[in-house]
């Protein structure tokens, strides 16, 4: 187990370097000159050279990448200066990540809870009653969920539940712990503000998971050990909980780990439409302004999150499935 975790961490480091390097390459492939942008419209060639030197953009990209890596190491990844400062407003990236990561985490984790709350019961019921009205209804839900883009859904939700019915706030965020003075905060406000974003974010995954859980439950119901459980005299709900679900949800746990990571990408749309000050929205802004350190800050954070979640899921999987031995 220890050896497994060590090996996974080493692999994670390799992946980390590859991902960040590719991000650098892509940034420098964009046919634009960020220096011109930062130096201002009236800049003389001297000003431009000074600006380039100031931001380190006068050096070849591999040297810049090397500096980026060594800065991460010398400042210890989570240090204030580890990720450098923003080209645009010269604030430390680390503090930006710190204030924005909780917003994205709220969206993604809350959304994941939401999609499981939707998908597990619907999936089970449609597995138990294939071709029933509920199953067909679920199929329609799945089709809508897979087809509808989150931006479209978000606008519809905002129009109906926010603008028309005044049930939910439009485009704002309430902090769970420390709201800025004069603004709403606390768990209840937080959940109320996040409800529509969660729904928007969760629908695509809920739809996919209904399909997956339905298939997995139907497959497991035909297993011999389920028949054994019935032959033992177990009541249906025990058969379902202890024998069918326990096995049917094993593959779902793996998928959940991967999809929560994948969801970080989907969060961009939801954050943008609902004006949530999260990482996804920040990443989009940084690309528009060629703010490389911000982009890299978000990439570093997202990559680390994905790698950590994957290791956790693998370990968790070995815990819940006794047949799997990590080595």
């Amino acid at each position: 187990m220890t050896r497994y975790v060590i090996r996974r961490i080493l692999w994670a480091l390799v992946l980390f370097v590859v991902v960040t390097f590719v991000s650098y390459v892509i940034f420098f492939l964009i046919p634009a000159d960020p220096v011109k942008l930062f130096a201002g419209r009236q800049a003389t060639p001297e000003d431009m050279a000074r600006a380039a030197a100031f931001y380190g953009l006068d050096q070849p990209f591999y040297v810049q990448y090397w500096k980026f890596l060594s800065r991460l190491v010398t400042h210890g990844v989570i240090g204030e200066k580890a990720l450098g400062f923003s080209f645009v407003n010269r604030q430390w990236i680390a503090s930006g990540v710190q204030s924005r990561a909780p917003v994205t985490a709220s969206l993604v984790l809350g959304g994941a809870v939401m999609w499981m709350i939707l998908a597990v019961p619907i999936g089970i019921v449609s597995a138990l009653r294939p071709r029933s009205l509920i199953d067909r209804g679920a199929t329609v839900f799945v089709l809508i969920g897979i087809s509808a883009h989150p931006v479209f859904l978000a606008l519809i939700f905002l129009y109906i539940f926010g603008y028309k019915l005044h049930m939910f706030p439009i485009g704002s965020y309430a902090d769970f712990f420390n709201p800025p003075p004069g603004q709403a905060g606390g768990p209840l406000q937080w959940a109320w503000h996040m409800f529509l974003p969660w729904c928007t974010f969760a629908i695509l995954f809920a739809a996919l998971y209904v399909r997956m859980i339905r298939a997995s439950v139907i497959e497991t119901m035909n297993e011999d050990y389920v028949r054994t459980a019935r032959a033992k005299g177990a009541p249906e709900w025990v058969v379902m909980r202890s024998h069918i679900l326990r096995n049917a949800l094993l593959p779902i746990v793996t998928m959940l780990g991967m999809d929560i990571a994948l969801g970080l990408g989907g969060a961009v749309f939801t954050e943008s439409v609902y004006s949530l000050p999260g990482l996804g929205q920040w990443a989009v802004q940084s690309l528009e302004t060629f703010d490389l350190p911000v982009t890299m800050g978000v990439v570093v954070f997202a990559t680390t999150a994905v790698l950590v979640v994957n290791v956790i899921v693998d370990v968790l999987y070995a815990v819940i499935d006794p047949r799997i031995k990590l080595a």
Partner: protein
Amino acid sequence: MALLDVRDLHTTFRTDDGLVKAVDGVSFTVEPGQTLGIVGESGSGKSVTCLTIMGLNDRRSAITSGQALFKGADLLAMPKNQLRALRGNEISMIFQDPMTSLNPVHTIGRQLVEAVHLHQDVSRSSARSQSLDVLKAVGIPNAERRIDDYPHQFSGGMRQRVMIAMALINHPDLLIADEPTTALDVTTQAQILKLMDTLQKEYGSAIVMITHDLGVVAEIADDVVVMYGAQVVERATAEELFARPSMPYTWGLLGSLPRIDHDVERLAQIPGTPPSLLNPPPGCRFHPRCTYAMSICQSEQPPLASATGSETHLSRCHLDPATRLTEIKKLESGHFAEVT
């Protein structure tokens, strides 16, 4: 009174192709403490018969009629809860494939304890000690340690022992074994059969042994039911069946067994394939494959009637007694294998 009295059992499955009559008018009885062997080739309806009795068929597609009286109460007509209270308690079942019949995510101890708790109101520690005892009884070495292992840590033979332990843990009066040795290798088969025999004496359970292996039947059965095409074609005590098998399908089954006292070039086989249950042949179901088929066999189904004068020995065949007797003699002398 018989422990289990199955009367005119019918099970039909709705499929996309139409109605499949998997069990068509099957009747037999099992006496307390006795062993009944149900023999037949794949698809003859022997497993479905037992699953129907246990109420384990898919409720959506199976249509059942007839009676299965267990201690006088009809298993097919009783409320679900009542049947569930009997299952695993007074009637247990073990299945063909021990590799897939145990839940892979629970330890065998937990699965045994579950079986105890479903039918007995006892403490955890008592349930566990009962589980340990029964594991020892079925011959699991190091039972104290292995009780906390998972199914994948056991071999096929050991898993079948665990299945038997789980079936016997509540001391059932009736144990239904659906080809319990088919998936095991030959030496393990012999061990499992011997184990079942020993345990039957110890626990006094009656056994219904489903098998396609007449050798198994000869070894442990008191009575035998031969099934073909969803119907019972011969029913007798084991002694009578092996001494005077009285219809061509049973002859075929016996003729295809290797025998130690006769040296034959090639074992006999029954020509043709089992009948389709979606669309069974008219008349006697065996007539398309029968070397003795007469014209009456194609149009009229023979009743299940006494063939040898014995009340316990019934068979379905139009052949006259004299012909049957000559054929039985031939089979006896080993001549049969070459004739067929």
